């Protein structure tokens, strides 16, 4: 098989083995700019996905919603939003272990930055660019970090919100979302978002998005984290649930109106 041959293009790292077995992913992160800073929300579910064994080799499957090889909701309190330094907030969807590796990179970055002890500190723009370089670099080695990242922050009165994908596609916007959020949350945000959202309105808007995601995205769970970053710093709120309503009449008696052989 071709995969047995070492590939000169991939460099020495390609010979090493990386986690290939059931892996754990998180779903969407949604973030918006609001009056005083950035708000970010994600649920806390972690899907464990069974991988396809092809030609005797474990092969990583891409997106949970695209694969039919089995997936169990395994973890129910995965923290996918973390503060980075004083001015930034990072949210991630995708492979949790890769996210945790990214957190280690950033911990080191911030540590070395602090060690200069000169009053300078990396702001959200710098961290976002650094992340972009990391993601793009790994895709160049054909060894991507399997995440979509959302980075928000405030420094010197400047709000910043950006995102990076697994292959290094990066941009800034007033509101961003990763994964399913791109399909389901951003249309809502495009319609309802405005520059002067108050904290309460911002949270309500995010909750609206998260509720839609909860109903439509099978990997989402009803346990959320909402985080806020302003000039004053980061606040990550305690996990909480949203009120849901599954009492649609169609759910009560699903076979009614679809009378079949069973």
């Amino acid at each position, binding site marked *: 098989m071709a*995969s*047995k*041959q*070492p*590939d000169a*293009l*991939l460099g020495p790292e*390609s*010979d*090493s*083995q*990386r986690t*290939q077995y059931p892996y754990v992913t998180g779903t969407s992160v949604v973030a918006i700019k609001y009056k005083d800073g950035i708000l970010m929300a994600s649920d806390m579910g972690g899907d464990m996905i069974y991988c*396809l064994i*092809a030609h005797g*080799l474990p*092969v*990583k*499957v*891409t997106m949970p919603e*695209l694969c039919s090889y089995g997936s169990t909701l395994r973890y129910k309190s995965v923290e996918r939003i973390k503060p980075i330094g004083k001015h930034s907030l990072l949210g991630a969807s995708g492979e949790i272990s890769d996210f945790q590796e990214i957190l280690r990179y950033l911990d080191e970055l911030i540590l070395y930055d602090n060690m200069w002890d000169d009053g300078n500190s990396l702001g959200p723009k710098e961290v976002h660019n650094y992340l*972009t370089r990391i993601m*793009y670099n790994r*895709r*160049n080695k*054909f*060894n*991507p970090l399997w995440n979509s990242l959302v980075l928000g922050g405030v420094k010197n009165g400047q709000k910043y919100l950006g995102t990076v*994908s697994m*292959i*290094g*596609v*990066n*941009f*800034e*916007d007033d509101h961003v979302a990763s994964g399913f959020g*791109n*399909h389901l949350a951003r249309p809502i945000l495009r319609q309802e978002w405005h520059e002067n959202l108050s904290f309460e309105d911002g949270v309500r808007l995010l909750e609206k998005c998260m509720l839609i995601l909860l109903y439509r995205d099978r990997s989402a769970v009803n346990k959320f984290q909402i985080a806020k970053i302003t000039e004053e710093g980061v606040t990550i709120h305690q996990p909480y649930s949203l009120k849901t309503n599954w009492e649609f009449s169609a759910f009560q008696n699903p076979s009614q109106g679809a009378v079949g052989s069973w």
Partner: protein
Amino acid sequence: MAKQHANWSPYDNNGGSCVAIAGADYCVIAADTRLSTGYNILTRDYSKICKLADKCVMASSGFQADVKALQKHLGARHLIYQHQHNKQMSCPAMAQLLSNTLYYKRFFPYYSFNVLGGLDNEGKGCVFTYDAVGSYEKVGYSSQGSGSTLIMPFLDNQLKSPSPLLLPAQDAVTPLAEDEAVDLVKTVFASASERDIYTGDKLEIVVINAAGLRREYIDLRKD
């Protein structure tokens, strides 16, 4: 070998169209600001135009991450050039550098489709058009990107560039006046955004002439 992912590609096409038109004493470079992936619009306000030197700008579509890497690389090279030569790089020099940079990655290409426009050393408009691996040509006008199949024939019809086979060689610059060229660019983008789903949202137009560099924007279809 470890990294075997089913269904993983290091590339994406983020769409977008670019146009450049050279005139006797100006150059118009334009691109839309939509960034998409598949049927998704990632953002409606992403500039595809990058100022590389005082009289030289590049418009690029294709894979955003590669485009960004390319822009940053050229930016750094231009800084080094300025340190060493104490002047801005000329547009033809940048055109050659861009070609070399693209070809350097011939076997893992930058998936980017570029047009480079600006003024040459005589102050005349010039446009260079590229493929992803660096082959390039100096032309009077060009279009690249997802809407290029709609735009290029339109430009051909309107501008009728002289055949490169003509002897003696004829100048490729278009006979249009600056404002006519800007209007033409607006028209071609309005048309392209009717049919090309990857082109739309906003049009960014950069005009370079003896007075310097000017930017203007118009709205395009958002659907």
